[in-house]
């Protein structure tokens, strides 16, 4: 228990860097949390553990961003969507590796681990993406 890394966003992204998609699981009620959280919102237990999340899922909804925030301007237009993974948890992310006009609700997608953004500033999180299966 004490050996276990904390159930935090920071740790979630450390796992992403290792090519792992991990979420939290409540040992008491079994609820899976993505993002992970230190307190189960269902039963208030703090007894949580890391659990591997399936990397495949289907696209629930999406959009093509044309007007982007400053740091994403060079990438626009780009697609972002919300993906439901095979264990039913939902996660958003950019979709790449497919022509924008071929993106469809319901299409199967899999996670695509990005490269760590090399910046000295907080946060030094890597980015994950989605791509067609």
């Amino acid at each position, binding site marked *: 228990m004490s050996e276990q890394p904390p159930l935090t*966003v920071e740790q*979630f*992204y450390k796992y992403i860097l290792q090519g792992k998609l991990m979420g939290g699981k409540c040992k008491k009620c079994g609820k899976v949390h993505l*993002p992970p959280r230190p307190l189960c919102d269902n039963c208030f237990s703090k007894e949580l553990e890391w659990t591997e999340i399936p990397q495949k899922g289907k696209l*629930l*909804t*999406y*959009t*093509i*961003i*044309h*007007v*982007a*925030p*400053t*740091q*994403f*301007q060079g*990438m626009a*237009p*780009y697609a*972002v*969507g*919300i993906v439901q993974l095979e264990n039913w948890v*939902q*996660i*958003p*992310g*950019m979709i790449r590796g497919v022509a924008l006009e071929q993106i469809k*609700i319901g299409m199967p997608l899999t996670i695509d681990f990005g490269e760590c953004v090399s910046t000295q500033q907080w*946060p030094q*999180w890597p*980015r994950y993406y989605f791509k067609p299966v």
Partner: protein
Amino acid sequence: MKGDPLVSIVSAGLSKFGKLEGLYAREIFAEAAKEAFDRCPKLDPKEDVRALFVGHMGESYEHQGHTGATMADWAGLLHIPATRTEAACASSGVALRAGIYAVLSGLCDVVMVGGVEKMTHRTTPEVTEYLAMASDYPFEQWHGITFPGLFALMATAHMHEYGTTERQLAMVAVKNHHHGSLNPKAHMQKEIALENALSSRAIAWPLKLFDCSLITDGASCLILTKPELAKKFTDTPVHIVGSGQASDTIGLYEREVFTSLAAAKLAAKKAYEMADAKPEDIDLAEVHDCFTIAEIIAYEDLGFCNPGEGGKLVESGETKLEGRLPVNTSGGLKAKGHPVGATGTAQAYEMYLQLTGQADRRQVENAETGLTHNVGGSGATATVHIYRRG
């Protein structure tokens, strides 16, 4: 008792909405406060106003936080308790709630509630970045999701599930621009053609330029008091008879559905219960049309139509000024403009004008009962208020 007034609005003020070049947020707020004081000669601002609650979303715009005290000072109300409320685009809907708490608690007989935002001096990418702060940072902003993007995710889902069309979305914009053309304080006072709206450039597909609210400067405020004191200040008060507020996950992606806002539905349920009212009792409404899809979802969440039928409702023309249930007679966020922190109480200002017969060219005849619906972020906060002519 259900349906009894909770508090009464005895005055209201609104600055001009638009690109207010050279003005600072506090100066814009002073303009709104001045109108509220002028409308209510029986109010002695320094004697009577016991607290200020002011909605303000972003310190990034002017590099200025600590907005509560600043706005109290510039409104000439120095030394009263002054509190800023922040709930993204619902910041002043929440300020209104806070004012109701203060009056109902018995701590304050008279309070000012309001909101302010100064946005247009920043570039669009900067504003886009600041607005996105109302969404989840590690999973939404970090992955390039913008504010229009969040509502676009809802639009795609609504279109897929219910067959809502881009044309129906554009009809919301055409309607609200028509209303805005009748409002001298609106940011954009011009009609738009359906075809132009449909062919405008993509911002976050399927949302286009004309599906988006405007980046606007502006401020709004109301003077609230106990219902039993209202007649001391005015012969024509407007009573707030229902108030609801609810919250939801900060991340849109965690929700069970993307075609409805649970917080808005819960806030509406509370407000209707308190007011002892049903959706059929509402004569007019100001809803949070930050994007055209949001107005369509609002119709459904507020019970104006069944889930999935919002597109058909706008198509029917019933929500036009001359329709059965006029929605966004002010022009809405779409045409009146959306200085985010000011929006919640600006909606209440329109309700105040309408229910006291002062809405001029956009007056809804015989309006007795109105509703406002204010949404923060992608729906992590929502407030709904119901008003009755005094």
